[in-house]
């Protein structure tokens, strides 16, 4: 069928089963927007900033497991979107981001709203394309969706000049993808898997180290089974929260810079690390030479480049976690879960010695309480997004996650401004769940224009702003490592968050007490409109435990103990 390049974009999205896209129009992408106007097969959510469009697509992708799609224009539209691309690249989120470009005849002339988009996105995407002929569009778009979702997922950027979206060509999407140079290895080597199971059976203090790859490969329920059948305790990375249910006895907690004492000690004492879809990030390992020093390392990852990048693997397995875990389950009978009883007990002792907790010793509410209380009130019924900073770490520590894809946060890039637009995408993907965004008084201002998107699209995201009048995480480092010189982190001057929400047509609450918080949260859930719940919290609370950057995991700064009355 003959059609324009712009129509091809629409037809390709429909063929890919896309039901929601996020975007912002502009000159170079107008042909495509004209076709969006004419169709009703998928909805377009108009964000109020291109960065937010990409974050929303990320939230959508993470919550749904599908490929997220964003549509933006050239020049500033594209450069605004770059942070989102980089964020998705770091956290392996499948996206297809389509941008307009100036017409082919103007490329290279410093034309209005021209920027070398593929040149910029090259280093922060899994792959990118500049489409110079509409004949290539069906193939390019089909490849883009395939590359984004397969192997180690990631963002793919497709840049289309305006004259290419106007060009009329034959459209045929029923084509075979033939990428001779891209064939991700998804099946783990069976012999290696056998060796791994033997090593586990021999180990005395093995430890599952679960990463975001488990969530990405939809392997959480298989992993739960493997953990339960082996009786081997597990730690989760920040990205893997929700893989095991919070009340699973074998789940220790999160490990790393702000991991629990027990999790970090378990990692320091283990004799065999069973890494599944985790990449030994510096925020997890602390000082590399001291990390799991006496342990063998099993590393299952879909990305060969992640294996032995930082920590040499004794048993590397390249493959999709789900496939590998299914094979491991076949051989699980050789493992005697009773063998690890002493090990489990010593971990329990670690946890009793320094549990993950906080003290309610201030007049103001403690931020951790707010997270915990939200968990008590909403639990499984909510999906949890966050921005970046202290609130994010507290959310990862204290929210009772019960399922994979419940936790949506910017881990690798650490993008302030991620949470609100991501929570909009999450709500669009999972309308039956409450969409919570835990945020701080710093982060929320980085994409607060999304109030308009949420109001217009009736996507009732509840933003819980833990307001300590500080850029809290930086303030914490300044307190601890910069002799309390709180340079540019005091955010005493602030907007009226209640009025801000109301100005956009949302609803605002200011909360000082526990009772007020319960009332506000219940009311916000009931009212079902976008909300800001500003919670005035203790200003100088620190995220603890903490492994100072570059320190060893077992050398944690700990919460001061309080005398028991």
């Amino acid at each position, binding site marked *: 069928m003959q059609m324009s390049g712009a129509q091809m974009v629409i037809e390709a999205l429909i063929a890919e089963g896309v039901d929601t896209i996020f975007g912002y129009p502009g000159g170079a992408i107008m042909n495509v927007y004209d076709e969006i106007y004419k169709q009703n097969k998928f909805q377009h959510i108009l964000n109020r900033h291109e960065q937010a469009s990409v974050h929303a697509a990320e939230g959508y992708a993470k919550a749904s497991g599908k490929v997220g799609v964003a549509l933006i224009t050239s020049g500033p539209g594209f450069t605004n979107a770059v942070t989102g691309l980089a964020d998705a690249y770091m956290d392996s989120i499948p996206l297809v981001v389509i941008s307009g470009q100036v017409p082919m005849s103007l490329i290279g002339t410093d034309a209005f709203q021209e920027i070398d988009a593929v*040149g910029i996105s090259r*280093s922060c995407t899994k792959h990118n394309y500049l489409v110079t002929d509409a004949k290539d569009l069906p193939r390019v778009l089909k490849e883009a969706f395939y590359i984004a979702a397969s192997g180690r997922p990631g963002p793919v950027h497709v840049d289309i000049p305006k004259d290419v979206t106007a060009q009329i060509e034959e459209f045929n999407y029923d084509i075979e993808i033939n*990428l001779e140079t*891209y064939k991700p290895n998804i099946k783990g080597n069976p012999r290696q898997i056998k060796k791994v199971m033997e090593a586990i059976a021999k180990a005395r203090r093995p430890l599952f180290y679960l990463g975001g790859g488990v969530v990405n490969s939809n392997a959480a329920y298989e992993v739960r089974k493997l953990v339960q059948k082996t009786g081997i305790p597990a730690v989760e990375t920040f990205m893997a929260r929700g893989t095991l249910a919070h009340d699973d006895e074998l789940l220790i907690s999160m490990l790393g810079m702000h991991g629990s004492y027990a999790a970090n000690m378990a990692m320091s004492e283990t004799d065999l690390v069973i890494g599944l879809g985790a990449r030994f990030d510096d925020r997890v390992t602390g000082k590399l030479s001291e990390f799991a020093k006496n342990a063998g390392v099993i590393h299952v990852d879909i990305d*060969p*480049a992640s294996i*032995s990048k930082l920590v040499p693997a004794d048993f590397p397995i390249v493959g999709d976690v789900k496939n590998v875990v299914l094979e491991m389950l076949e051989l699980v009978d050789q493992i005697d879960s009773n063998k690890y009883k002493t090990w489990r007990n010593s971990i329990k002792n670690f946890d009793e010695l320094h549990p993950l907790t906080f003290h309610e010793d201030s007049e103001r509410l403690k931020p951790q309480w707010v997270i915990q209380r939200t968990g008590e009130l909403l639990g499984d019924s909510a999906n949890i997004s966050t921005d970046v900073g202290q609130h994010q770490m507290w959310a990862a520590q204290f929210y009772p996650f019960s399922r994979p894809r419940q936790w949506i946060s910017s881990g690798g890039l650490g993008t302030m401004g991620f949470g609100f637009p991501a929570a909009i995408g999450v709500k669009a993907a999972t309308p039956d769940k409450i969409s919570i965004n835990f945020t701080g008084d710093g982060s929320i201002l980085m994409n607060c224009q999304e109030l308009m998107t949420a109001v217009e699209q009736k996507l009732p995201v509840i933003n819980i702003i833990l307001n300590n009048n500080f850029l809290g995480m930086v303030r914490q480092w300044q307190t601890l490592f910069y002799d309390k010189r709180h340079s540019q982190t005091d955010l005493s001057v602030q907007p009226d968050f209640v009025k801000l929400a109301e100005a956009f047509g949302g609803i605002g609450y200011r909360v000082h007490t526990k009772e007020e918080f319960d009332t506000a949260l219940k009311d916000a859930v009931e009212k079902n409109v976008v909300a800001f719940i500003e919670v005035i919290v203790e200003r100088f609370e620190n995220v603890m435990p903490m492994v100072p950057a570059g320190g060893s995991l077992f050398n944690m700064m700990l919460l001061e103990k309080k005398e028991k009355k």
Partner: protein
Amino acid sequence: MITENSERRVISVIVVNEASVLSRITDLFSGRGYNITSLTVAPIPESKYSRLTIVTSGSVRVIEQITKQLHKLIPVLRVYEHADLVEKEMALLKFPLSENITDISTLCAAYNGRIVNVGENVIIAMVADDPARIENFLRVIKKYNPKEIVRSGAVALER
């Protein structure tokens, strides 16, 4: 990784001939802080692929990362990290006619070369040999005051 021994390595990369594939490779090197000592590219006859020969340096672990990261790029078909290889490099040199042409010619011959062009004021000579020998030749030939030197960078084939 600074403490680990840095070694010279030759890596060959087979890539699809398509727009911007070379910048994907060089961006990867610059973005991840790897070195490129030399780089040559040319299409592989009667195929849709090109072959790059990259001379780089790094510890064993860095080289392993380089090959893995290269392989991750979508248009990369194969990456060879050579251990046992035949390696050659070419150099072109320009000398003033006033220099001792017999000497230059003899020296070039010892490095698989000769005088390839004679102009009104200058001669151009070429040599083609192992990179280490080219290095040596260039050191020796200095006393004949070459006005310009161009090196091709290494090409390599596994034995």
